[in-house]
């Protein structure tokens, strides 16, 4: 009799996963919408209650001025994007190279390892803005034969140099996070030092730091605007030119909106990659 009892309890279907009720699903969403709404209304009321608001609105948020400045600013922003992509490609390659050089242990590599350390230390110690001014104005003035003499070219080089120094540290952290046993395994299989880096260490290092690398890209996308100080007519420069001509600052808002439109999707993409990475790690420990 008892065995029958056990069997019947085994055959009992487990209940299906619990579904939250309508109420449980809607209330949190409602609360967040209402609280966000209240916050926004208060913020707008606070800013527009300022006595100067009508003047500021005319200076910064004039629809006419925005429309008028848009073509020039948009053209400048297109240049931002192009420079961003070009710089990003070189930064990705150059910083990885720097990180690899710093990881070399062979005594014969001492001079280049030392050079890489010096480079990273020096570049990280100088503000990016200063580097852009120095390279953007200084090198064209040298009139080096065979080298481009445009400020835009050397300004972009300065960005690449500056970001590479930071990004190489990101790569280095990623490489150090790969467990030593991975290197031992690769070496034990007969892979050379370079093959070990290429097939075992670097792919894992990049995976480790992908969110950080994308974060750097988001940051670079906006720092291209620093090139405005050496006269590159990118979005900020273009809007400043409009401002200087009309004494209306709405063009700056146009530029800001364009930057936002480009960087917010990139930031969300970074979040998604980071989240996916986290999920993968969680799966691994399960």
């Amino acid at each position: 009799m008892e065995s029958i009892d056990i069997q019947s309890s085994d055959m009992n279907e487990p209940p299906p996963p619990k579904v939250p009720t309508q109420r449980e699903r809607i209330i949190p969403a409602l609360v967040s919408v209402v609280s966000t709404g209240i916050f926004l209304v208060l913020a707008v009321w606070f800013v527009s209650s300022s006595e100067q608001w009508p003047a500021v609105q005319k200076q910064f948020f004039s629809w006419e001025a925005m429309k008028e400045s848009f073509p020039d600013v948009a053209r400048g922003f297109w240049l931002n994007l192009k420079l961003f992509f070009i710089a990003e490609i070189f930064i990705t390659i150059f910083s990885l190279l720097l990180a690899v050089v710093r990881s070399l242990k062979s005594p014969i590599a001492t001079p280049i390892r030392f050079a890489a350390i010096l480079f990273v230390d020096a570049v990280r110690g100088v503000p990016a803005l200063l580097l852009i001014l120095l390279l953007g104005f200084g090198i064209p003035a040298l009139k080096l034969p065979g080298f481009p003499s445009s400020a835009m070219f050397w300004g972009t080089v300065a960005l690449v140099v500056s970001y590479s120094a930071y990004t190489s540290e990101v790569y280095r952290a990623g490489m150090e996070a790969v467990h030593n046993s991975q290197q031992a395994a690769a070496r034990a299989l007969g892979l050379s030092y370079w093959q070990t880096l290429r097939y075992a260490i670097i792919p894992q290092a990049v995976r480790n730091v992908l969110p950080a690398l994308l974060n750097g890209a988001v940051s670079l996308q906006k720092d291209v605007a620093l090139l405005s100080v050496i006269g590159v007519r990118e979005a900020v420069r273009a809007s400043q030119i409009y401002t200087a001509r009309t004494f209306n600052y709405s063009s700056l808002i146009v530029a800001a909106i364009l930057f936002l439109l480009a960087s917010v999707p990139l930031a969300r993409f970074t979040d998604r990659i980071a989240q996916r990475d986290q999920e993968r790690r969680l799966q691994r420990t399960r």
Partner: protein
Amino acid sequence: MTQETTIPKISIQNLTKYFGAKLILHSVNLDVQLHEVVCLIGASGSGKSTLLRCINRLFPFDYGRILLDGVDIEGEEMTDNKLRKRIGIVFQSYNLFPHMTVLNNITLAPRKVHGISRQEAEMQARDMLGLFGLQDHAESYPDRLSGGQQQRVAIVRAMVTNPDVLLLDEVTAALDPELIGGVLNIIRDLKNKGMTMVIVTHEMGFARDVADRVCFLDEGRILEEGSPARLLTRPEHLRTRQFLQRIIEAGRL
């Protein structure tokens, strides 16, 4: 005794190694003949794993020599890569590459070190996975497999290049008890096929079963060696007896 006239597969002579100021291996002498299986036993920190890693030069050593087929592994004609083509190693924690499928893990060395075409390497790898009962996992990533499956993949990875010698470093230590059997069976198979192996293990039952010779290491020396039947049942040294007593108390013999 006829083997004394032949050149041993591996000959370790007066091997001494320090980590910093700490003596890890103290004048170790050990010859391993072709097709012989030698098990190294001893407490943690007795130098077993270090000795294993000196054989394929993952660790450098301070004094002494290691000969592979009579050739000094530190000599001119033996590069790291040549040595490691001939000596495979399997680690306690598998050390598979997590970013590669099982198939890529196994074919990496054949393709990149031995210059075999991808097609041929993959064919070999699939054949071998089949032999080890892993044919369905060729496209899986290591973290999708159980510990026992991962360790078997690691053994395939070490074996697919046909090394002369296989070194096994506590390959079952990280496994759940029910997964150990499958891995040990594979090692038994390898022995029956004539593989020369040096095995670090805590599984005394397995050592008794598979080893031609067991060496007991204590504080960096080989204190006692002999046939498993003799050494595991009638150890001469007090230290060996104490060690085996502790193992019996832990229920592993």
